[in-house]
């Protein structure tokens, strides 16, 4: 054994010393900083309040920084004000978080006022507090809670309850998310955002953006924030007995059927306009009575993808509505201004434009837009994108004139395009078509392209599994696995990919037309031409596959 150690690693000594010093400094720093941070405001005392809200104990530290319920103090200040007078309520007995929300068990300003995110516990201040009134009070007109009460009135007036169910509203729609406890999940700002920008999340939301003022949105938001998971105004007994109901707001005595069923919250009729849904002023002359009956029973069966829910109504109401629509909602189209300028027209030439223009603005622009590009005012709420006339000449060059004329005369089944055959005479329809070509489409009406012939249909068809594979590789990304037009890429395209399960639409289509679409695509849409990629039997097998979606069971 070596008597003297060789190459003693003295650097270890130095390292140890340095490490010890660093650790010591770190520990002392932490002790100092931690001690400082522990010095809270208000004389270093932490207030601890436990209140009993309707049998539920609630512990909170709010009065640590807000002594007496007044504005926040810092450091060693003394409280200057107490809580504003809220007689007959008593802040000492109610505590803070019952009305103001927030996180009572935190002492950090950011956490106690509610962390960012969904905002369910974000602290309510000022007039926002009215959202809390109806957590304890039954919903009725309450002085001091006008904002929330008006929100409820708006909720009913604007027909929100036709799609959204809120506990206590009886039938209430089940089309959209249930809002019975939305106040427990989202903050006021988030609720208002969801009303103002419905298509922000999720992106494929079908909720329309209702024309509401900022104040109206705030009122609705305040009402909805009061819908919570455990409201305090109903005893378990009342819930059991089914006696918890929101007060109905009966319409005015002289209200017509359209007002009573709140159709005008979305639709237009004459001068009144909800600005969300199509114009019903002439619907009796556009759609048959049978269509109307069937449509009212289940809108999505006749126009798949329609955003209108089934409106619950009694037999009597249904009869009244149909009576109104079939007798009063008929033509002729009122184009007063045009009739005055028209003088002895002979069917051709002489100023067809003013009448056609007025017809277009009265009947077409709501969907197809005054600019003719399809972005009409109600376009976002329609199941299908209205055909764009502008900037789409190739489409019209490849479509036979007869088909265009028929589209206007008979409508397009399975879509919101109604028949105009009964409402407009042939010459007016022709004038409209001329107008479309002159004003929007940009190519002469008779200028039609020569379409290349379709590959002949083979006698032996491709095996279905092969067709399925083809569909999967070529079509699913837009049209979706179930052919509903909701493939992974569908939100990137406008017009959206066609819903292949649209039974009425495809019932009116010939196989040749489907084959033409697959082979040559559709101009003005994202549908590409697959002619080069497909053999003849593959093409026709795909046509068959497309048919199966709309002919499937039910």
């Amino acid at each position, binding site marked *: 054994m070596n008597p003297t150690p060789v190459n003693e690693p003295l650097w270890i000594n130095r390292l140890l010393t340095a490490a010890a010093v660093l650790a010591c400094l770190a520990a002392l720093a932490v002790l100092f900083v931690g001690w400082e941070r522990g010095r809270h405001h208000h004389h270093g005392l932490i207030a601890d309040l436990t209140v009993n809200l309707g049998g539920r104990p609630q512990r909170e530290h709010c009065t640590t920084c807000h002594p007496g319920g007044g504005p926040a103090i810092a450091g060693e200040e003394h409280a200057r004000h107490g809580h504003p007078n809220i007689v007959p309520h008593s802040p000492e007995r109610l505590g803070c978080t019952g009305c103001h929300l927030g996180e009572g068990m935190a002492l950090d300003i950011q956490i106690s006022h509610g962390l960012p995110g969904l905002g369910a516990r974000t602290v309510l201040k000022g007039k926002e507090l009215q959202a809390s009134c109806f957590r304890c009070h039954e919903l009725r007109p309450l002085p001091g809670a006008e904002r929330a009460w008006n929100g409820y009135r708006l909720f009913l007036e604007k027909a929100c309850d036709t799609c959204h169910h809120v506990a206590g509203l009886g039938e209430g729609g089940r089309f959209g998310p*249930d809002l019975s406890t939305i106040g427990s999940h989202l903050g006021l700002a988030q609720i208002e955002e969801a009303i103002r920008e419905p298509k922000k999340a999720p992106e494929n*939301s079908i909720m329309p953006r209702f024309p509401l003022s900022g104040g109206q949105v705030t009122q609705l938001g305040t009402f909805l924030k009061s819908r919570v998971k455990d409201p305090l105004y109903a005893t378990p007994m009342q819930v059991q007995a089914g006696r918890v109901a929101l007060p109905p707001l009966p319409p005015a005595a002289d209200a017509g059927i359209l007002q009573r069923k709140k159709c005008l919250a979305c639709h237009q009729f004459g001068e009144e306009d909800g600005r969300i849904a199509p114009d019903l002023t002439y619907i009796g002359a556009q759609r048959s009575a049978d269509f109307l009956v069937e449509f009212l029973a289940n*809108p999505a069966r006749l126009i798949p993808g329609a955003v209108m829910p089934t409106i619950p109504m009694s037999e009597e109401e249904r009869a009244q509505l149909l009576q109104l629509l079939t007798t009063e909602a008929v033509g002729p189209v009122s184009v007063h201004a045009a009739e005055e300028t028209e003088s002895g027209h002979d069917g051709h030439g002489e100023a067809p434009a003013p009448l056609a223009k007025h017809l277009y603005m009265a009947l077409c622009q709501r969907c197809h837009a005054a600019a003719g590009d399809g972005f009409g005012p109600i376009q976002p709420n329609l199941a299908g994108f209205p055909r764009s006339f502008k900037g789409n000449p190739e489409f019209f060059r490849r479509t036979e004139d007869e088909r265009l004329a028929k589209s206007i005369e008979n409508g397009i089944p399975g879509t919101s395009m109604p028949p105009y055959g009964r409402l407009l005479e042939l010459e007016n329809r022709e004038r409209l078509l001329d107008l479309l070509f002159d004003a929007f489409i940009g190519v002469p009406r008779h200028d039609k392209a020569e379409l290349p012939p379709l590959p002949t249909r083979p006698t032996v068809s491709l095996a279905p599994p092969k067709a399925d594979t083809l569909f999967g590789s070529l079509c699913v990304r837009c049209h979706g*696995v179930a052919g509903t037009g909701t493939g992974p890429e569908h939100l990137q395209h406008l017009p959206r990919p066609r819903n292949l399960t649209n039974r009425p639409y495809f019932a009116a289509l010939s196989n040749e037309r489907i084959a033409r679409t697959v082979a040559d695509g559709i101009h003005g849409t994202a549908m590409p031409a697959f002619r080069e990629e497909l053999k003849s039997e593959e093409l026709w097998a795909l046509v068959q596959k497309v048919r199966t979606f709309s002919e499937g069971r039910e």
Partner: protein
Amino acid sequence: MTDRKTMNRREWLRRLFLYGTIGTTFAALGGILIDVWLAAGRFSAAHWTDLAPLDLMPSDGAVPFPEKKVAVIRRGDRLAALSLECTHLGCLVNTVDQGFFCPCHGSQFGPLGEVWSGPASRPLPWHAVRAREGRLWIHTAGKRPAPEWLDLGAGPGRV
């Protein structure tokens, strides 16, 4: 210790018996422990729960019960219970006319829970159902991929 080579048969049998009994003891105890460790599902969440009276079900449609997170699907004379928990991240899906729609991230499901679109990749699963005393009961756990149809033809009083 007795060497393996020199051990006689009796010694070997004795050892076998000893290891066998001790091994079985611990296997049994281990089995008990593992059952207890895995039993939480049976303990709290998995049970038969009463849903609604049988005669209230409309024909051909879906009736949602959001508190129980199921929808009862009826096709003619048959009933089944579809889970309303979105297979993406567990949000409660809405029942709409054409099927089901998840408000959280936009997943769409068809009338029998098949995936039509959206971030969800698996179809909605089904619950076991049974009829008892004229009422419909569902089992809250043990969701399965295929529906278990309940025949109403046998009469609502069927147990």
